């Protein structure tokens, strides 16, 4: 493990793509959770695939 001063180490180019992926995953989590709970609280079904 490289013990440089991590408070000033610049981010490498991959990092912004990594952050984009994690934001996409959060969006998927919120969308699927919202859809599933809406369906369930309206008595219409459940998690995708378990209608």
């Amino acid at each position, binding site marked *: *493990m490289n013990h*440089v001063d991590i408070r000033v180490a610049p981010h490498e180019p991959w990092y912004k793509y*990594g952050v984009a992926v*994690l934001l996409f995953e959060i969006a998927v*989590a919120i969308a699927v959770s919202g859809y599933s709970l809406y369906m369930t609280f309206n008595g219409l079904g459940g998690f995708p695939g378990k209608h």
Partner: protein
Amino acid sequence: MRGHKVEQLGIATVGFFWCFLMWFSTAAFSPSIAATYHLTIKDLGLLASSAIWMAPVGRIVAGWASDRFGAPRTFAAILAGCGLVSIASAFTTSYELLFAERVVVAIAGVSFVVGVQHVAQWFDAHEIGTAEGLYAGTGNVGAGVGALLLPRIFGTDYRSAFLWLGMIALVVAAWYLWRGSAAKTMERRDAVRCGGDLRGMVFVWTRYIAIALMLAYAMSFGLEIALNAWLPGYFARGFHDEILALGFTGVAGIQIAAGTFAAVVSFNASLFRPFAGFMSDLFQRKGWTPLPFIAKELPYAPRLHWLGIALILIMLSMIGLTVAGLYGFLPLSIAVLVALGIFVSFGTGGTFALVPLLFPDRPGIAAGFIGGISTVGGIAYPLIFASVNAHVGYLYVALYMFAPFILFYFWAARYERHPQEHGLLGRALAGQRS
């Protein structure tokens, strides 16, 4: 060493995703298997629980092997071995043999610690949280994808599913061996190989901070797998009338609603995990150390504080779950549960943003110890939940287990210099030069 770190992250993530898919593929087809072999509820419970039998010991061995032989060889061996047994299980006609084969295939779940070690060998301290989070969080999604897609693609034909999963595992294993590289530099690889002996294992296992991280992971990932098994039954019993009032009818309807509430927790716990790693990096970059007692001067002190916050949030939301349950207000209970799923991801992501930094010469052994022993929580918590009133079990676990775990974490993380020097044995007794 060949390769680029993003490529190595991609290989590890795909490998872990596929292992997770194989790990939980048995559960996805349990209704079909039950129908084929006329299984009872008891048999089904045994089949479901068998998925985590191999995790505690298997992860310890896999973590050590990844330090000793390198992650690509270890990961490829797991993928190939589990893949071959998965293929064999597609042709099995005896249930006893199928059960044994699926227990072996479930060993795929131990690959988690191998990937943690692999990623730690390639990424530097300032980005390790996000890298480990992306690896583990994206890989974990394999379980959800398996539950959603496998029955749709293969219907009730679990034999074809096991065959294809096994064959693709062999392809991924070959790819891992071909393109995978154990570490960014030879120096880093050699340092880890030398640390991966029995003395190194004794050293890690006896460190207070390693035990604290193991308990932190038991509070997060251990709780996650416990909730996966426990929540469908909890909602079906604890909110029976409220679910019927939503418009669901019969056992199947209640099962759909209860299963959905449980699935949402699991889904959030997986998909928010990379964000948790990112937050650990952000704490580090900003130098945030808001909690008392925990060290503030260590190079990775802010990450210790982020994990401390996550553990407190997990405990508070467990208490909230009991309060919401006793009020009998289903929407509040679901809201607390969604928050708990996210806080669990903070705990899992926060823990493995620290492990490679605390034990840079033994990342596999440390990951194996922390990721392996903690899975016992998946067995222990449901036993406690089941022993008391359905709603009060969360409060019991929060007060009698999580509160002491958090106090121990604060105590073990208080050292301002080299917390890994402190343990049950002195450095000399633990086999390390002082």
